[in-house]
């Protein structure tokens, strides 16, 4: 049976506490955020605490995954896209897969909707989720997770119909980054919302990392904006700018220059190691990382205002 979370208990903690409490060697860890709101700071803290033998589940395995690979945290990767966005390659990931350098990486390759369906099945305690993908692909030949089921209903033409299915994924812990939450863990996200809610529900434990911790009244003034309710959240971590080099809609923009730089950094294992030493091991926490980048840097990612118009939820007279 799934855990039941005490929604009023003290959930607000530091990233250090959250990683220490909820990430153990050998765990399956999901980090979600589709281009937007990538939980980078969570990945960095996992690196600082030296976790080993993790299975990382992430649809778009990008820079933060390459960094966790380089830090030796990860032995298995479950993903549907392994690349540095459209900006280039992930050097460490390619060394691991192409040359088993410095060690092999077990890789479960899916497509985006396959991953979405795995999270949906995980969140809903379904034994499988069907999808109209994979027919004729070579992927099932290298991924035994993709199987076929025969529909018990005849197709429109009366014939028997088969469809591929994927199995549920149930991470030990899911980390997501979000714009804001209250102290209970009611989490509000806008802009690209991706698969975060399902990734939280699929997990045994869930940590929400936020730009802002807000008063209950802020959340309750717009309940439709709450994509992850308190009962599904085990810890809330306040960590402004924790999605960098990704972005937070309405807070700061994407650091496209860093994405472009990563291909060269990660291509050279020595340079990559130096980068980790300086920016992850060399910073005590994300606040130190943010400070090290400097205010001038952050002003370059600053954005202007484009406010939504309020809607009326109504009040009984």
């Amino acid at each position, binding site marked *: *049976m*799934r855990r*039941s*979370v*005490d*929604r*009023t*208990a003290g959930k607000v903690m530091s990233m250090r506490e959250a990683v220490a409490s909820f990430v153990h060697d050998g765990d399956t860890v999901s980090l979600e955020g589709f281009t937007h709101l990538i939980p980078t700071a969570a990945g960095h803290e996992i690196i600082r605490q030296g976790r080993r033998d993790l299975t990382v589940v992430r649809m778009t395995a990008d820079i933060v995954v390459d960094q966790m690979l380089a830090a030796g945290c990860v032995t298995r990767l479950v993903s549907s896209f392994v690349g540095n966005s459209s900006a280039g390659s992930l050097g460490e990931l390619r060394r691991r897969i192409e040359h088993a350098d410095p060690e092999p990486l077990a890789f479960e390759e899916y497509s985006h909707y396959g991953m979405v369906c795995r999270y*949906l099945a995980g*969140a*809903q*305690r*379904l034994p499988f989720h069907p999808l109209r993908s994979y027919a004729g692909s070579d992927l099932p030949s290298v991924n035994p997770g993709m199987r076929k089921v025969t529909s018990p209903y005849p197709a429109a033409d009366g014939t028997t119909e088969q469809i591929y299915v994927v199995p549920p994924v149930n991470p030990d812990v899911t980390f997501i980054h979000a714009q804001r939450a*209250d102290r*209970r863990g*009611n989490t509000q996200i806008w802009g690209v919302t991706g698969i975060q*809610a*399902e990734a939280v*529900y699929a997990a045994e434990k869930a940590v929400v990392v936020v730009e802002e911790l807000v008063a*209950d009244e802020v*959340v*309750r*003034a717009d*309940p*439709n904006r*709450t*994509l*992850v*309710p*308190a*009962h*599904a959240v085990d810890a809330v971590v306040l960590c402004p700018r924790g999605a960098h080099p990704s972005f937070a809609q309405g807070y700061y923009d994407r650091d496209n220059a860093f994405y472009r730089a990563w291909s060269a950094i990660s291509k050279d294992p020595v340079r990559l190691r130096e980068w980790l030493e300086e920016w992850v091991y060399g910073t005590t926490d994300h606040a130190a990382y943010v400070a090290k980048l400097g205010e001038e840097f952050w002003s370059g990612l600053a954005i202007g205002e484009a406010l939504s118009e309020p809607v009326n*939820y*109504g*009040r*009984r007279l």
Partner: protein
Amino acid sequence: MSEECTQTTGAVTSSELLSVVAARELAGRRTVFAGIGLPTLAAELAHLTVAPEIEAVYESGVCGAHPSRLPETIADAVLITGAEAVLTMPALFGSVLQGGHIDVGFLGAAQIDRWGNLNTSVIGEWERPSVRLPGSGGAVEVMANAREVFVVMRRHTPRSFAGTLDFCTTPGPDRALADGIRPLGTGVTRVITELGILARDGVGDELRLVAVHPGVTVGQVRAATGWELKVADTVTTVEPPTDAELRLLRDDVDPHRVYLR
């Protein structure tokens, strides 16, 4: 029903009695899937007494409601304004309920049998019933997925506590197992009626009488039950609603008498 209450707070109605008893049973529970009516009263009273951390989740998708008035429907506008979250229906039924996040689901029924299976579809034959009832709503899902289910039945009669259901809309885990499917929840663990409380622990277990209201005998409950009712070794007497419970219920939970009649 209880003399010492009458003086200060007026006669205890059946709704009040059932709400108070149900609220006490929610002690220590965190998430409750509440229907409208007595379950709402019970959840709100529990919140003020034995389960301050309880969260009422509604079939409409509302989580963490803070209504300004007692809601009249599961989607009442007063449940929405000021709520912590309003989820889509796939999220509510899929992730929250089927995902296993509900500790206690409240259900009612026209008929219940000794295993806690429920009928809310028809009296008579399904094809041409003598009474067509509303059907499942989300009851099938609540039974299949909540950790445990509380049933509140105002009337305790051999017709409603049936030896054989006219139709099983909402099966408990024993019937699920017989159908070859491993159930996820415990099924009905408490049945609260005007006569007393029946309890059941898990798969393979029948409902048994564990408590009676003051003045009710075990024989009366047996006679009102449509099967040979099992009785616990020790049948306790339900403590009548206290003044404090009644005051909270009447003054804070339902001051406008939406449900307390």
